[in-house]
């Protein structure tokens, strides 16, 4: 599973960084999503799904 993030859609709410700080951060310049590690470990997948669901602008996807 791979995390895909679209900075164009991102509105910088910080929900992903709050939910899984090991995998997500925000750009210092415009606050948009920065994926620290695109391939999460299996035990992290549930948290990543939470982050995807909480993203207010639909900027995150978890794909096969």
């Amino acid at each position, binding site marked *: 599973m791979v995390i895909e993030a679209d900075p164009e859609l991102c*509105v*910088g709410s910080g929900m992903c960084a709050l939910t899984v700080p090991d995998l997500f951060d*925000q750009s*210092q310049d415009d606050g948009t999503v920065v994926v620290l590690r695109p391939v999460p470990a299996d035990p992290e997948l549930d948290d990543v799904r939470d982050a995807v669901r909480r993203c207010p602008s639909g900027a995150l996807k978890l794909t096969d």
Partner: protein
Amino acid sequence: MNDMVCPITNGLPKVRERPLDPPAIFGQLRDDRPIAPMTFPDGARGWVVTSFAHARTILTDSRFSSQGSLKHLAFASELATELDIEKDLPPGQFEHMDPPEHTRFRKLLTGEFTLRRMKAMVPQIERIAAGRVAAMRAKGQSADLVRDFSVPMSAQVICELLGVPEDARGRFEELSFRALSLDVKAEESKAVLDAIVNLLIEVAMGKVAEPGDDLLTGLVTGGQLEPAELIGVTLLLLVAGHETSANMLSLGTYALLREPEQLAKLRADESLIDNAVEELLRYLTIVHIGVQRTPTEDVELAGVTLRAGETALIHLPSVNRDPERFPDPDRLDITRGAIGHLTFSHGIHQCLGQQLARQELKVGFTTLLREFPDLRLAVDPDEIPMRENMTIYGVHELPVAW
């Protein structure tokens, strides 16, 4: 639609059966018709949304507009609780805009409100909270938490973020206190607003002469906003950031003092604070007028047709009490994982300052509980005056003793 009775007429009902629960009618509506017809006080026909799932759907659907000119007053009132967005406020109120206009403003600011930056502000926020505790102690054994803690703390945090210089903070705090206690006629409301705008202009001019390392300097020197827009954006940050945090601090404390079991749990284990903050945000949902979205074309949803122009009011307090999403929703339970609530809304307009709010509430509640081990209400809980008439729900005053 003619066969449907319209249960909410002349705007939202204000009377609550219990001060911390939304009016019971919204729960009944959710069971029967989660998207129900309503009429606004100006006579316009629209919809009230009470289910969590439909709220999320509408808030992320780009066929729904946030344009201020399409919104309506939510409460019938002679009071100046809601200002006319287009007539009374300077330009730059981007919560009432759609893309691409909204995007231009939001992208200018998102870098200033990242989780990382807000966490870096915690030492400053702690210093501010400690200052308020000292001021409360100086008064003796009792104080009004609203006037002596929440309002000045929240004002000082936003001053720190914006970069309002020390010599202007006293005036700023006084004006913000007046703005927050307004249940007066439109003229006084307008006068306070004008005074705040003038103070912001003065502070912004000061940043041209003497730039600092703060948000306002960034906006002034960035050159991306017209001067009037710059003042408008600053005003939006101020109003959105100050009135909300101040009321959450007071109302959250009130809720905890009313629920001794929950309070004891939090006192026994400070690590519950993150959960407690999310749960208080959900349970109290102080944006009790909800948020509005207007379909720009006919939209079919949940068996109804929302016609173009018929505004949907997402009733956030009852959306956050949807049992489908939060089991036993009317119970305050600081151990539940309430994150994912819609208190900060959802979609592209979700609260820009939410990570600041989280840090501020966390520091505020932790400081109060740590510094005042015997904090209690100084009057009967049912005597506390609630802000039923105000845009943001909360308490007008909160006499506490320790």
